[in-house]
């Protein structure tokens, strides 16, 4: 009888210990979540970084609108991207620099960015801002600087303040004109048309690539999302 009481008492004590363990576990989860949130970089209008590096990387390559490279190049590589998309950022930083260095800088191909706004309304704001920067010859500086400073997807960081900081960092000279243009119906219609085009091509994610050239059957080939710079370079070679 007394042994049963002792067992019951011990079990009660252990249940209390388990409750304390559960509380501790919940605290640990909360700490993990806080660390996860605080460790997120980018999306900060007050600390836009990398403008000089990007300017150096792109120097000497012609830009017109969102087209990078010789406008007369016989092969056109088109990227359909969403500026909020983290995979597009990965491409911009790890894959495209090699393609730009080997195929765009020498005039073999031109690289065109088209907006495929799949994430949320802020993607449309970002896309319109890029097009407006392109009108002042800073489209690719804007795109690359945006990616460099990209924040957490759909977290609300794409504010007017953030976009203005990117435009200024990208070297857009007339911010007033850029502001008017990015909010104009014409620019927003262009964003919508590019996204519709991506849908018509059957693209389902970003970034997706399309190559156009004289050796491509039908003039246009959908590449999807190649895994390496080499695949994009091969596609360019095969198209022209």
């Amino acid at each position: 009888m007394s042994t049963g009481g002792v067992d019951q008492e011990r079990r009660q004590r252990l249940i209390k210990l388990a409750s304390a363990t559960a509380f501790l576990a919940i605290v640990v989860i909360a700490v993990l979540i806080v660390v996860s949130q605080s460790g997120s970089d980018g999306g900060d209008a007050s600390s836009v970084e990398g403008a000089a590096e990007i300017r150096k990387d792109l120097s000497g390559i012609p830009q017109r609108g969102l087209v990078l490279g010789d406008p007369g190049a016989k092969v056109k590589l088109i990227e359909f991207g969403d500026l909020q998309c983290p995979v597009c950022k990965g491409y911009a930083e790890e894959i495209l620099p090699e393609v730009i260095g080997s195929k765009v800088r020498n005039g073999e191909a031109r690289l065109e960015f088209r907006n495929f706004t799949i994430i949320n309304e802020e993607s449309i704001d970002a896309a319109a801002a890029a097009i407006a920067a392109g009108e002042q010859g800073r489209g690719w500086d804007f795109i690359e600087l945006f990616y460099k400073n990209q924040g957490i997807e759909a977290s609300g960081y794409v504010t007017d303040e953030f976009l203005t900081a990117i435009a200024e960092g990208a070297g857009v000279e007339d911010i007033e004109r850029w502001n008017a243009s990015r909010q104009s119906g014409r620019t927003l219609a262009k964003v919508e048309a590019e996204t519709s085009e991506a849908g018509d091509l059957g693209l389902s994610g970003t970034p997706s690539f399309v190559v156009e050239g004289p050796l491509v059957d039908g003039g246009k080939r959908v590449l999807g999302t190649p895994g390496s710079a080499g695949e994009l370079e091969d596609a360019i070679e095969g198209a022209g």
Partner: protein
Amino acid sequence: MQAPAEGTLRTIATFVATLGAGVATYIAIAEADGGAPACFAGGGGCETVAASSHSELAGIGVAVIGIGGYLLLLGAALLRGDAGRLAGFGLALVGFGFSVYLTYLELFVIDAICQWCVASAALMTVLFTVNALRMVRYVGAEP
């Protein structure tokens, strides 16, 4: 309904924790060189999740943290008595809670689903259920 024997619960926990460590190891290896695990259904979900800033926690890959978590859960499953019961329950609760948070991020922030992460979340849910049952039913009992 009678609860399964503690030995059965520990065997299930051992098997599931080992499987979880395997899944986390695969994800960690696939992401090590900037890549992503292969998503069988396509759609780029695994690439999107792997490229997300949420795939790291204080500079450490979430998958690497997962390996550590599963190995600790494996240790708790192998440990007899109340120490194993309490440790298993606490660790599984942390793992389960963090998995819920990561699944929320996939669905509502990253907007992409990685099948391997879903598999890991499912395994963690099983581990939490088994360890909670072990703790509630057997704590205080003879090992």
